[in-house]
């Protein structure tokens, strides 16, 4: 826990203040996606494919249309055909045609749960009856839901004309391999030749869902003149607008997107599913259309993160100097491309100074839903492979994992292989704090083990615009365009209150809709406290400059002759004392006579986000007879730059670790031989519940980011990156067996123990023999 007894540099920043959204959330007043209702609304529902791979021969909607209460039925034919290429959206490029085909199949269905039609009806019952009346003729095709099977030469092809890119010469035949890439520095072969010890391993993981509690929900209302409004639970209303306008062929000014409160996203709400469908149904019916997914739909239709196969080779001199690393990452992307290879490449071995490094990657489609972002996309699986191999190398060298990192820690000021500058690093401070933890001194029993993992995350900035209004009573309304998932409103209000020298409770932060601000990128990439922080400090300074001008006008002084501090305006310099100080509220109240309403703004592309590091330490107990793994203790040490609101920062880190624990131990999609998803609810998609987790300790190390007025580094994503690896290393320490596949579910662990026992494997710890 952060030590709050430290002398405070700030009045508000760093304090554990009341969250502005707390009361509404516990009383039920908060309006989430499914809470928005409009007069005359219709219920929209999608018909989902029961087949993982099939050609759509015919869709007959006649009987459904004839059912009383049915107002519209749409299929893929009701949406435009788009060009199959990336469309630039701010810093990003999205293939809208892929997303359009994800949310509504065209010629083929590509996964169990792929929508093929949608209805708008007066009630849910009528909508369900209508879905049952839609007749779809399918030609069932062979399917593949496994990464390695999808790469096989004879695998069923999802996209019959897809030729792998990034290889020269390109292959002649189509395959499910979307692309291959390679980054290299030094000479990989020479590096391994120079190594005294080489560790070479393969690691496998399966797709996992983000597991947000709130299912996707939206309501669309399109007026007769074509102007449309859309309320949706989203991480990025501007990106949603770009998706919807692009998929429907509309102009952006015709579509207003309003972000509701959001019950978790973790990257899964960076895109659209039902939103363009609801807009189209509303356009056809001229009624609002509300669409709320069931949990089953969420699990069948929406994007998990990639499953993976990693092949890692690491070479070291006998003194512990790492000389070479070779990491091949093969990621499963589901029905359409979009796996997180870029971020995976950005973190692999980045916290280490390895002269010969090769990062190669491939992306593979399969008959599962298209992957979407999930907290530190690609990070946990990359770190699992990397830190498992690092753990084994440390063991072979007979040194601690900390010593191995310290000996090879990346140097300040270098540029990573993926092209990211590594400056103002807090790695050494994180390692110092981690090694000093009492946790490391806690004795372990014969079936218990301790795992340590450390990783880097690069963090984002990105496009941001905000407004700040000085109200006539001196209070401040801040408008931001990034939905509050992890405490943004509180953090923004604190940063504004600190900058303006006004009380925290005089600042109210609201999430604006797309008609009220310039473009805002999404709440994602650990960017918001950083980039939105930059912007609201800028907008606060804009307000301060304006009130100084008003006071200068009143006193007939030049604006630079007015000093602003702690909510008071004073003549400065040679004019000091010439007039009595005036409170901000007085200037606010007199706006009508001093030049009009006072409104600040700031826009930025969010440069200078600082990378950070985290070390996770997990203690587990493994039941030798059931294979069950219990997490006994868990500690996080993380460089956060500066914690604006420590409760939220700790919460982000604890949440990330909790998700990683679930990923490491139990979360798994169960697809039948028929390619249908069997565990379509949280009962059988086993995310951890509270009793599965110990209290997760969190040590916040503050190495300020010099590019941010308060020193902020993003914290949302680094929190999950080392978690899977820490648990895997702990299971290795407990049992003596390294697990090369996650989840380390009880049957898998028990089978592995039984196998080692039968083979008299000497690495198996005595308590398991």
């Amino acid at each position, binding site marked *: 826990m952060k030590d709050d007894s430290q002398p405070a540099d700030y009045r508000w920043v760093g304090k554990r203040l009341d969250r502005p959204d707390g009361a509404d959330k516990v009383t039920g007043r908060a309006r989430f996606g499914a809470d928005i209702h409009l007069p005359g609304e219709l219920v929209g529902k999608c018909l989902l494919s029961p087949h993982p791979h099939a050609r759509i021969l015919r869709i007959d909607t006649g009987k459904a249309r004839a059912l009383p209460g049915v107002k519209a039925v749409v299929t893929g034919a009701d949406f435009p055909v788009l060009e199959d290429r990336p469309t630039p959206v701010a810093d990003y490029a999205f293939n809208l045609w892929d997303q359009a085909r994800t949310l509504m199949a065209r010629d083929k269905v590509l996964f169990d749960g792929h929508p093929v039609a949608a209805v708008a009806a007066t009630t849910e019952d009528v909508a369900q009856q209508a879905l049952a009346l839609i007749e779809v003729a399918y030609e069932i095709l062979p399917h593949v839901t496994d990464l390695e099977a999808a790469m096989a030469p004879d695998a069923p092809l999802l996209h019959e004309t897809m030729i792998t890119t990034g290889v020269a010469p390109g292959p002649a035949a189509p395959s499910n391999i979307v692309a291959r890439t390679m980054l290299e520095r030094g000479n990989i072969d020479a590096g391994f030749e120079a190594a005294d010890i080489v560790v070479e391993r393969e690691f496998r993981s399966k797709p996992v869902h983000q597991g947000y509690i709130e299912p996707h929900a939206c309501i669309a209302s399109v007026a007769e003149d074509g102007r449309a409004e859309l309320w949706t639970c989203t991480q990025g209303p501007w990106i949603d607008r770009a998706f919807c306008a692009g998929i429907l062929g509309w102009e952006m000014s015709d579509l207003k997107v309003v972000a509701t409160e959001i019950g978790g996203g973790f990257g899964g709400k960076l895109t659209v599913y039902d939103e363009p469908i609801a807009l189209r149904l509303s356009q056809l019916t001229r009624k609002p259309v509300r669409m709320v997914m069931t949990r089953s739909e969420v699990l069948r239709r929406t994007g998990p993160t990639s499953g993976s196969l990693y092949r890692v080779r690491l070479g070291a001199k006998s003194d512990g100097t790492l000389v070479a690393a070779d990491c091949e990452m093969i990621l499963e992307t589901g029905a359409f491309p979009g796996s997180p290879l870029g971020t995976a490449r950005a973190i692999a071995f980045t916290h280490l100074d390895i002269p010969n490094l090769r990062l190669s990657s491939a992306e593979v489609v399969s008959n599962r839903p298209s992957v979407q972002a999930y907290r530190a996309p690609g990070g946990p699986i990359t770190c699992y492979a990397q830190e498992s191999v690092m753990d084994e190398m440390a063991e072979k060298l007979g040194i601690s994992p900390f010593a191995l990192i310290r000996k090879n820690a990346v140097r300040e000021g270098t540029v990573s292989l993926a092209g990211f500058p590594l400056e103002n690093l807090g790695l050494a401070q994180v390692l110092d704090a981690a090694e000093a933890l009492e946790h490391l001194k806690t004795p372990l029993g014969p079936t218990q083990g301790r795992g340590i993992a450390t990783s880097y995350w690069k963090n984002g900035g990105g496009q941001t615009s905000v407004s700040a209004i000085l109200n006539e009573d001196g209070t401040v309304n801040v408008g931001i365009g990034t939905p509050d998932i992890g405490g943004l409103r509180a953090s923004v209000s604190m940063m504004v209150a600190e900058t303006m020298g006004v009380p925290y409770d005089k600042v109210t932060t609201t999430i604006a809709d797309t008609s009220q601000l310039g473009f805002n990128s999404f709440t994602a990439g650990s960017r918001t406290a950083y980039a939105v922080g930059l912007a609201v400090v800028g907008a606060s300074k804009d307000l301060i400059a304006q009130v100084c001008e008003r006071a200068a006008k009143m006193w007939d002084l030049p604006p630079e002759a007015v000093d602003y501090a702690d909510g008071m305006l004073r003549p400065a310099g040679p004019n000091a004392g010439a007039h009595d100080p005036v409170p901000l509220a007085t200037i606010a109240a007199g706006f009508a006579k001093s030049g009009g309403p006072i409104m600040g703004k700031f826009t930025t592309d969010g440069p200078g986000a600082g990378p950070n590091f985290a070390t996770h330490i997990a203690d587990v107990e493994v039941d030798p007879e*059931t294979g069950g793994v219990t997490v006994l203790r868990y500690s996080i040490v993380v460089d956060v730059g500066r914690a604006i609101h420590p409760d939220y920062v700790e919460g982000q880190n604890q949440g990330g670790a909790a998700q990683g624990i679930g990923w490491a*131990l139990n979360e798994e999609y169960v697809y039948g031989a028929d390619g249908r998803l069997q565990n379509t609810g949280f009962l*059988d998609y086993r995310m951890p519940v509270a*009793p599965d987790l110990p209290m997760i300790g969190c040590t916040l190390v503050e190495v300020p980011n010099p590019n941010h007025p308060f020193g902020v580094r993003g914290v949302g994503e680094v929190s999950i990156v080392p978690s899977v690896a820490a648990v895997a290393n702990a299971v290795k320490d407990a049992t003596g067996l390294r697990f090369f596949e996650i989840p380390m579910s*009880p*049957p898998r662990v028990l089978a592995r123990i039984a196998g080692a026992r039968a083979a008299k494997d000497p690495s198996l710890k005595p308590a398991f023999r």
Partner: protein
Amino acid sequence: MQYFRPTTLEDAVAHLRAHGPGVTILAGGTDLVVQIRAGLRAPEAVMDIKRIAPLSEITRTEEGGWRIGAAVSGAEISAHAGLCADWPGLVEGVGLIGSMQVQSRATPVGNLCNASPAADSVPAMIAAGATVYVLGPNGMRKIPVEEVAQGPGKTSLRAGELVTSVTLPRRAARSADAYLRFTPRAEMDIAVAGAAVNLTLDDSGRCTFARVALGAVAPKALLVPEAGAALVGTMLESDALRRMAAAVTAACAPIDDKRGTATYRTAIAPVLARRAVALAQTRAAA
């Protein structure tokens, strides 16, 4: 769908007689309502039995055992000092169903009649030797609890019948039960396998009576007489436990499904049974 909420057993029987097999009984509703919402069941009529006063009571039987009404919730059982003292294993089975919220609605009799092979309260009821009271068109009949479930979702109850209560026998001295299940998650999960043990020790600690029941390793919860027999007459020493475990393994006939593999279920059922014996032994000796 019709909905009835009788306040007397006579009215309940009348509804059953009038509507026959079309009536589905609603107690806690934690299975039924979920099944209706998921489209798995569409009953013509639902009869809520929670307002029938005698069905909501826990009372002493004439023999000195306990009678649990069909509408008694899991939470009421967990809060009942007498049941906690006499049947800690049954109480622990009830306490594993869903979550605290679920248990304040869910009833063990509903758990029994839903006939899931993984029902957490059922193995302990079987190990306890519980008797089920069934009211039908021809009056009341009694059946051993292990004869209710016939397979997943199937029971031996006939059309127009209503379970009114379950009774537990009088407790002998130095007796106790225990129930253990395995789930990958600590809570809000369904048993991958479960084992209940009910035993009596004599003054020397020798086992004089034992019943062992299993959950989630066959189409229905099983009584394994051979496993109990392996314990009777022993000091519950390792040889006896090995024979008991072998009988448990032999009785397992599970399936592979999304919750676990047949191999895994068969591997852990004897482990759970052995641990449940140890727990029951400690309790009985205390």
